C-alpha cells in the first residue's frame, strides 16, 4: 500500500542535498525545491542550480532561460512568509557581490526574482531590482504579445497535424 503522506518533496534528492547545508527553515527548503523543479521541468531553463547564502540564511536559485541568456537569480518565499524591506535590501546587496562568492556564475542580470509559492504549489514570479526601473515600453509589450500569440497558434497547428497523422494510422 502506497504511503500518501505529503512528504514526497522531502524525499527528492535535491531536497536531501540542500538540507545538508544545515540552515533555512523547512518551509523555505520546500519552496526552493518546488521552484527548482518548476524551472527545470516546466520552464525548461538551463543550468539551474541551488546556492546557499549563510549571510542571508537563504538559498537562491540560478539559471538561464536559454543557454545563451544571462543568468538570473531567484529566491523562493512562502506566500505567508514575512519579508521586510531590510531583507530584500540584504539579498540585493549579496546578489551584487555574487561574482565574488561564485566566480563560475558568469554574466548575470541585475536584481533578483522573488518566487512566491502558495500552498497549492502555485508560483508567482516578481522581479525586484534596486533603484528606479521604468516600465517596459508599451510597443515592446505589444510585440511580445503578438509573438506569443503566433507561437501558440503554430504549436496548435503542429498538434492538430500530429493528431491527424495518428488518426490515419
Amino acid at each position, binding site marked *: 500500500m502506497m504511503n500518501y503522506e505529503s512528504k514526497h518533496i522531502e524525499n527528492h534528492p535535491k531536497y536531501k542535498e540542500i538540507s545538508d547545508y544545515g540552515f533555512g527553515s523547512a518551509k523555505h527548503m520546500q519552496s526552493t525545491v518546488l521552484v527548482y523543479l518548476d*524551472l527545470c521541468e516546466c*520552464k525548461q531553463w538551463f543550468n539551474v542550480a541551488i546556492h546557499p547564502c549563510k549571510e542571508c540564511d537563504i538559498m537562491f536559485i540560478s539559471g538561464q532561460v536559454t543557454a545563451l541568456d544571462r543568468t538570473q537569480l531567484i529566491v523562493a*518565499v*512562502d*506566500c*505567508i*512568509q*514575512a*519579508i*521586510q*524591506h*531590510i531583507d*530584500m*535590501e540584504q539579498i*540585493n546587496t549579496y546578489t551584487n557581490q555574487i561574482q565574488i562568492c561564485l566566480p563560475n556564475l558568469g554574466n548575470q542580470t541585475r*536584481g533578483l*526574482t*522573488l518566487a*512566491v*509559492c*502558495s500552498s497549492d504549489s502555485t*508560483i*508567482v*514570479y*516578481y*522581479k*525586484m*531590482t*534596486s*533603484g*528606479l*526601473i*521604468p*516600465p*517596459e515600453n*508599451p510597443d515592446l*509589450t505589444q510585440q*511580445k504579445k503578438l509573438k506569443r500569440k503566433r507561437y501558440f497558434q503554430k504549436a496548435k497547428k503542429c498538434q492538430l497535424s500530429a493528431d491527424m497523422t495518428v488518426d490515419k494510422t
Partner: protein
Amino acid sequence: MGEGRIRVSVVKDCAYVWNAEDVCMLREKHRIVGRLVGCHARFARQNIQLSLPLQLLPEETSLLLLKGMVDLVDGTKSYRTPTEQQKQALERMREKTFQDQEHLARQQKRDDIVKNLDKIKAGKKAKRNKDLEERRSAGEDIDQSQFDEDLDLDIDSFQIEPLRKENMMIQIFTEDPWQEMDQSLDWTFPVTEEENLRFRVFRDLWEKGYYLTSGGKFGGTFLVYPGDPLRYHSFYIAVCLPYKHKMCGQDIITMGRLGSDVKKTVLLCSVNDNNELTYTSLVWTAIS
C-alpha cells in the same frame, strides 16, 4: 513677505493657491501639480472639470517652503465679515471700474458709428427722400437736386446713450484682493516618522526631475511621472514603507499585480539604517 513669492492660503491644515497665474507657474516652472478642487465659475453643477483653488499636498507645501518659493497666509481671514474699510475700498473700486467701463462703452459705440457711417448716411438719406416725396405729392414744389444731395454727418453730433449702473459688469474674485500681507503661519508638516518618510521620498524624486501626484487611486503613496501628467502616463507607483515593516508574499503579489495591470512599476521606498533612501522596483516577470 518675499518679493515674487507665491501666496498659499492655509485653512485647517489644507494649503490652497487661488491665483491662476501662480497655479500655472507652479506647474510649468516648479513641477508642482496639486489638484483643482473648486467649482468652475462658468460650468457649475458638474465635477468633471474643476477650477480654482489648487489644493497642494502637504509634501508639496513643505517642499515649496523649504525652497523659499511661497509665503503662507491665514486663509480663514478671507471668510470673515468685511470691515468698514474693506466695504469702502470695494465701493471705491466699483466706482472706478464703472467709470472705466462707461468710458469704454462710449468709445465702443463711437467706433460702431464710424464703422457703420455709410449705412447710417444711406438710411438718413432714404428717410429724407421719403419725406420730400410726400411733400411733393402734397403739391409742394421740390427740386430733384434735393433728392440727390448727400448728407454731411458729424460723428460728434450723435447722441450716445451713457452706460447705466445696472448694466455694468462686476468682478467676482477668486483670490482675496485684501489678503493681509503681514501674516505668518506655522506649518508643522512633517511630524511623525511616516510623514517624514513620505516627505523625504517626495523631495528626492522631485529633485530627480519627476512630477508627483497623490497615488491613492492606485493604492500607493505617490504616482511618479517623467513629465507633465497631462502629457505622460506615470512610470511608478511609489509605496512608502518603514524599513522593517513586515510584508508577506501575498502583499508583494498584491502590489505587483496592481502595477502590472496598469503597466507601471511599483517602487518600494524606505529609509535604511544608514539614513539613506532605498528604492526597490517590483515588476512582474513573464516566467509564469
